């Protein structure tokens, strides 16, 4: 009964206890002002924990300033089933739009990454858990359409709890629809790079997100079809702490790389260079190749590449 026994550590609330401020690191408890965290690309300076990033901020991090143009920003979810659970679906949509300033859980568009054009589809986990509904699927397809129309690569960044239950079967069909969009890229021979952020689960990872020609994940991201709680509850199996994490997925052969957020833009630039045809001389308004990779690759290769004599890799 003595107050001395109160555990100060636990008072702050366990992870997921609901008491943690969104800008407090769940791993090392460091706390940041929002502008500090934004400046640090939402990576904890103490322990390297990757916080969840919103779609617009992510686009800021990856795309050359001022080059992003949104597609399909005027699409909004309808409510085909007149769905009501504890709250009507339309109310949830309105709340999410007011909270995030986004029309749905995915922002589609195109822009330049270190001078190279790419179509983009970037998800926002804070909009209804990044759930996939009709608008999300359509916007992803619009980004893919743009990539096909202009012959440029598609890059997606995903963060999603899965399909949106409020649209039930139509949400499920978005899986087939987005896979079809990836198929149209494959038919045209255009590269698709998929970046998986925390968390990418359910219908999103079981459709387009897994089908990247290159699949990259952020450190510590949860990437699984069924979440750990669902696995534990339905099968009674004990789930390891690193279940479905990016690092274990890399070990199990499901990913090409785990790339820390600060290196992501550089890696994308490298991949876009590798995927661009060697005879494709950069146009005048692009930055010269030498500055693109920032000392990452052998300059001789680039010169040879420009002359069409590049050594073929893998």
């Amino acid at each position, binding site marked *: 009964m003595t107050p001395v026994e109160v555990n100060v550590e636990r008072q702050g609330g366990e992870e997921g206890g609901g008491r943690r401020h969104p800008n407090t690191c769940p791993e090392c408890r460091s706390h940041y002002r929002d502008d500090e965290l934004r400046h640090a690309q939402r990576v904890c300076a103490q322990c390297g924990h990757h916080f969840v990033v919103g779609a*617009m901020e992510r*686009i800021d991090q990856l795309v050359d300033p001022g080059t992003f*143009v949104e597609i399909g*920003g*005027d*699409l*909004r979810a*309808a409510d*085909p*089933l007149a*769905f*009501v*659970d*504890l709250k009507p679906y339309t109310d949830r949509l309105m709340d999410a739009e007011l909270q995030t*300033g*986004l*029309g749905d859980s995915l*922002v589609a568009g195109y822009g330049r990454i270190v001078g190279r054009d790419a179509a983009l589809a970037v998800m926002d986990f804070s909009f209804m858990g990044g759930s996939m*509904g*009709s*608008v999300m*699927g*359509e916007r992803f*397809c619009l980004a893919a359409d743009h990539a096909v129309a202009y012959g440029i690569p598609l890059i997606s960044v995903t963060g999603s709890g899965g*399909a*949106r*239950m*409020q649209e*039930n*079967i*139509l949400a*499920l*069909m978005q*899986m*087939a*629809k987005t*896979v*079809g*969009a990836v*198929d149209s890229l*494959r038919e045209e021979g255009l590269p698709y790079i998929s970046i998986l952020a925390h968390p990418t689960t359910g*219908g999103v*990872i*079981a*459709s387009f*997100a*897994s*089908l990247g020609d290159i699949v990259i994940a952020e450190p510590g991201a949860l990437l*699984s*079809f*069924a979440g750990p709680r669902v*696995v534990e509850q*339905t*099968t009674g*199996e004990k789930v390891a702490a690193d*279940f*479905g994490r990016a690092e274990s997925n890399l070990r*199990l*052969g*499901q990913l090409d790389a785990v790339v820390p957020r600060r290196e992501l833009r550089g890696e994308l630039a490298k991949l876009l260079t590798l995927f661009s045809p060697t005879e494709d001389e950069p146009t005048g308004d692009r930055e010269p190749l030498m500055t693109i990779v920032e000392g990452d690759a052998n300059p001789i290769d680039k010169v040879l590449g420009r002359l069409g004599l590049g050594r073929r890799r893998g």
Partner: protein
Amino acid sequence: MRIRSTRCLGAWDWGDDVVRVSDEVRRLRKRFEARAEESHIWDAVQLARNPDRPYTLDYAERLFTDAFELRGDRAFSDDEALITMLARYHGQTVVAIGHQKGRDLSERTRRMFGMPHPEGYRKAIRAVELADRFGYPIITFVDTPGAYPGVNAEERGQAGMIARSILAFCQASVPIVSTVIGEGGSGGALAIAAGDRVLMQQNSIYSVISPEGCAAILWKDSGQARKAAYAFRPTANACLDLGVIDRIVEEPKGGAHEDVDAAAKFLDDAIRQSLQQAEMIPAAERRRARRAKFRQMGVWGVVDEPTIQDF
């Protein structure tokens, strides 16, 4: 009876009271209709899960001749929750793919209650590629609560394999007819359901999550499954209205389990006709046509101006 009497009252010209009575009638009637629909939907859920309901193999033995089962994914093992076969159907060779639940406990455990592991989908992809190579049409039977949500399945890439299976169906240049014959549960069902023609049996269900799962997440109580099912309407009629399926296949009175032969006859007619329709699409255009079919699925609105102008 009570309703009829109040409606009689409403017919009298009693000033303001008339309005109130007829409002009450409308409210009651709406509630009764909702209750009736709720129980109708729940009946469909129960029928779709009825343990006596015919499964893939029951239909296969009535629809096909000379069936030869294709087993194994050539990489890891043979998943018995999903079966693939070569068979003769109305004089032509077809590839059939379907989920298979078990009849008794030992078979159910062996077949994982029709919940495939990644091996199962790898086997399905193998079957699709085989069909594509030889130009055989593909007929699929969908009947699964969902893909198996276990640690091993996840470690072997459940999500990626479902995605690859949908892609394999997208890319095939042969006609594909898919029928939901029981539970069409989520991605595990869609993995073999991306066909040129998608059918559903009258009492089958097709949904993004089980009613129990939906209730557990949105109502925070899996006991509210009945309410969840009413809210998200997993029935064949709703799927047809939303443009997700092309046709509803009739079942004998009381459900397919009441008369399996009759159910198989209805299914046979529907599949044969749908296959003929799918065969009308030229092979070179089939991939694009199938993609276009799924592309138009979804419902959304357009606002006048995009609200994000941060850039």
